[in-house]
């Protein structure tokens, strides 16, 4: 006789977010009839402490061997319920979260009866999947307490000191002769006119104070091997000795290149009076009094913005963020140095975002002229004796041609990926985006991690950033790294590919598509087969469909799991939808404080007796603002919170506790 399955099914009302549209009682009843299901319950808030305790008790008392929670998006609570499973002795991978809110009750709130039928398919599929799921064991690795930081610009240097203060040994690897990166030679930086050289000098002082940081300059990375916890980076220093550095994690902070205009792009190369913004900054910062070009004092300067950036057809579709403010602050510095200058800014849009807007105001007050051009009709530049003629179609004044004569033209060039970024990408096997900057896993949710476990990104190698933004991201990466390797042992998700040797007769197709060199050929008895190095495998699954004999699968995405879900979606539901389509009325019962989701309690504690806006609640709790928004909406609906009106800054609604 087949072994009795003992699945626990928990269906969440989400305080009406689900049960207003989906008949959760009918779902509970349908699953209760399933012979594989031992416990089937509906809960007001599955994530509340009380519900979690109830699940833990069921797992222990009823000896459940698998569990599903049918509630919100797995991205919100997978870890909550995996922890419930782990706490009560159930393998966390014998838990599946079924999304019946974002992908069902809300998406089909216009079709209640159909939403219930769809939910029935989703819940049954979840049950099938969990039955077929393997009890996986997280991969545990020991980690070296050392970090290799690649690039000693501001991003790399700041992260290095932070990591050293957390107790990590740091190898700071710089290819140039000295540390500092792009701003190391600058005299005046926005937003506070501080000197880049002084900033870099201060940071180097901090590095010297920490014996745990070893700075290598003129260093070339030759080879990278290993994986999270134990990478080996081979570096040749000064063209001489090759060192083998052993690190638990790697932070890439290799920065950017300045865009180099093409010959004759806006007259570049036609004379000394056309230069890029970095070239102009160097000129401006190298002397005092009159600014002189080609032996003549400069009186009239034009800037052309977005050179090489925001290209509709070219490779650089993005905006380089820092250059608008950098250009305007250089114009202010030019006024300060020379006096009596006429400055014209030929721009496409001015993006002095946030506090940097004050630069635009100051330059306007200084009398600078701003003329807007469009990418379709760029300004035309020609040498006219000792000066330059520029014709620009001003988009804001009836699109008429305006002719300017200037002594100097500054091309506002932005940041582009380093020319050697392809080399770094292939050494570290990290992906680049279509813009050729390095790609993080998710720009909002996982902004400093790469798909390679143990390799992180910081600063402008991810895309254009100001210094403050670069340092923010490299410090975020430093904390993330410490959070992962600081404990010494690391637990990894066991979602990796596996080869069923019996079906494999090494054709090499899988190894060819694997971007991470995780598949190699090995002997297996008298045959050759593919094997997967589980610490190099990132769990993308790309190798699985290319195998002609279906010998590879990815843990948690096996044929049995996926095909059983499809079967369950397709099978008829046992539920007869209610004709009224009203959903479940029990969602509207009054609810007790002990049933509040854990998230609500945290939010209520943050709100205290004050009235607070959604952004303020998000700030105080650390929850995502979008998550706070829908929690607040539900809390208002259940009269746990009441709207109090627009807040003091007249920007946001604020909310107060009902009691």
């Amino acid at each position, binding site marked *: 006789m087949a072994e009795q399955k003992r699945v626990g099914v928990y269906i969440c009302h989400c305080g009406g977010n689900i049960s207003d549209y989906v008949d959760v009682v009918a779902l509970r009843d349908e699953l209760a009839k399933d012979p594989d299901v031992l416990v089937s319950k509906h809960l007001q808030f599955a994530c509340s402490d009380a519900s979690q305790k109830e699940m833990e008790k069921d797992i222990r008392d009823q000896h459940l061997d698998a569990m599903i929670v049918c509630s919100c*998006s*797995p*991205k919100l609570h997978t870890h909550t319920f995996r922890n419930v499973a782990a706490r009560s002795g159930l393998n966390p991978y014998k838990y599946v979260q079924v*999304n019946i*809110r*974002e*992908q*069902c*009750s*809300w*998406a*089909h*709130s*216009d*079709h209640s*009866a*159909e*939403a219930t*039928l*769809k939910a029935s*398919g*989703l819940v049954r*599929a979840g049950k099938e999947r969990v039955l077929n799921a393997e009890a996986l064991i997280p991969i545990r690795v020991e980690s070296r307490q050392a970090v290799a930081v690649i690039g000693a610009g501001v991003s790399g240097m700041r992260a290095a000191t932070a990591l050293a203060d957390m107790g990590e040994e740091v190898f700071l690897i710089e290819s140039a002769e000295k540390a500092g990166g792009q701003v190391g030679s600058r005299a005046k930086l926005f937003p506070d006119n501080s000197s880049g050289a002084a900033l870099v000098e201060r940071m180097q002082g901090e590095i010297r104070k920490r014996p745990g940081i070893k700075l290598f300059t003129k260093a070339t990375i030759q080879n990278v091997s290993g994986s999270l916890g134990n990478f080996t980076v081979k570096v040749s220093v000064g063209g001489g000795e090759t060192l083998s550095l052993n690190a638990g994690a790697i932070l890439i902070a290799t920065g950017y290149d300045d865009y180099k205009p093409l010959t004759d792009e806006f007259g570049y190369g036609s004379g000394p009076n056309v230069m890029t913004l970095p070239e102009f900054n160097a000129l401006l910062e190298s002397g005092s009094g009159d600014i002189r070009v080609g032996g003549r004092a400069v009186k009239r300067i034009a800037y052309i913005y977005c050179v090489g950036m925001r290209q509709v057809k070219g490779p650089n579709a993005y905006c380089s963020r820092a250059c608008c403010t950098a250009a305007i602050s250089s114009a202010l510095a030019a006024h300060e140095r020379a006096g009596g200058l006429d400055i014209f800014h030929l721009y496409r849009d001015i993006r002095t975002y946030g506090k940097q807007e004050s630069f635009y105001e100051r330059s306007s007050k200084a009398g600078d002229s701003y003329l807007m051009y469009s990418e379709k009709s760029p300004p035309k530049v020609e040498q006219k004796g000792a000066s330059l003629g520029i014709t620009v179609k001003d988009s804001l004044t009836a699109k008429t041609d305006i002719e300017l004569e200037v002594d100097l033209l500054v091309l506002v060039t932005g940041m582009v990926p380093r020319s050697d970024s392809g080399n770094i990408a292939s050494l570290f096997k990290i*992906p680049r*985006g*279509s813009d050729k900057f390095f*790609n*993080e*896993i*998710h720009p909002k*949710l996982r902004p400093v991690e790469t*798909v390679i476990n143990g390799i992180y990104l910081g600063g402008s190698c991810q895309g254009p950033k100001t210094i403050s933004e670069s340092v923010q991201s490299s410090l975020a990466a430093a904390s993330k790294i410490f959070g992962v390797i600081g404990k010494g042992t690391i637990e990894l998700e066991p*979602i990796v590919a596996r080869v069923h040797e019996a079906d494999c007769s090494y054709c090499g197709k899988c190894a060819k*598509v694997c*971007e991470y060199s995780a598949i190699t050929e090995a002997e297996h008895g008298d045959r050759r087969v593919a094997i997967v190095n589980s610490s190099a495998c*990132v*769990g*993308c*699954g*790309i190798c*699985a*469909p*290319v195998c002609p004999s*279906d010998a590879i699968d*990815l843990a948690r*995405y096996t*044929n049995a799991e*996926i*095909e059983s*879900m*499809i*079967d369950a*979606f*397709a*099978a*008829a*539901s046992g539920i007869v*939808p209610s004709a009224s389509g009203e959903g479940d009325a029990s969602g509207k019962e009054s609810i007790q404080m002990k049933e509040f989701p854990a998230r609500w309690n945290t939010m209520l504690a943050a709100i205290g007796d004050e009235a607070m806006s959604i952004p303020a609640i998000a700030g105080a709790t650390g929850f995502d603002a*979008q998550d706070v928004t*829908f929690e607040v909406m539900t809390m208002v609906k259940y009269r746990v919170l009441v709207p109090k009106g627009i807040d003091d800054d007249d920007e946001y609604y604020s909310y107060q506790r009902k009691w």
Partner: protein
Amino acid sequence: MHDTISTPRILVFSTEKISDPGIDQAGLRKIHYSPAVYTISVPCSSCVKPRWILHAFERGFDGVFIAADGIECSYSPHCSDQTNALIEEAQRQMKERNISPKRIRMAAICSVCAEPFANHMANFTKILTELA
């Protein structure tokens, strides 16, 4: 299969990190699409096996939609080519079974693509209705 739902049944393979948040957002903003759309999350659109697609058709699904990361894929710069290749293989096998290649579609769905996802579902539903 549900007898109360006569609209075409669509199986969506969606990527966990990028397309899923987009589809979730459609729900969050109550942008409606057909309730005969079922989603299975996968790490990468290039990991979908043609046999899963065929299995869906065998079980009575009318269409399979692959919500891909396109150029945003964080795993592989060749992701779109890879996904295209598996779709072509699936279509080859579909042809042997007399299933129209139009019953499978792919589009890039990013983490904020709520409306585009709902529009894709509406269009695909229309195409599948016409094919029926």
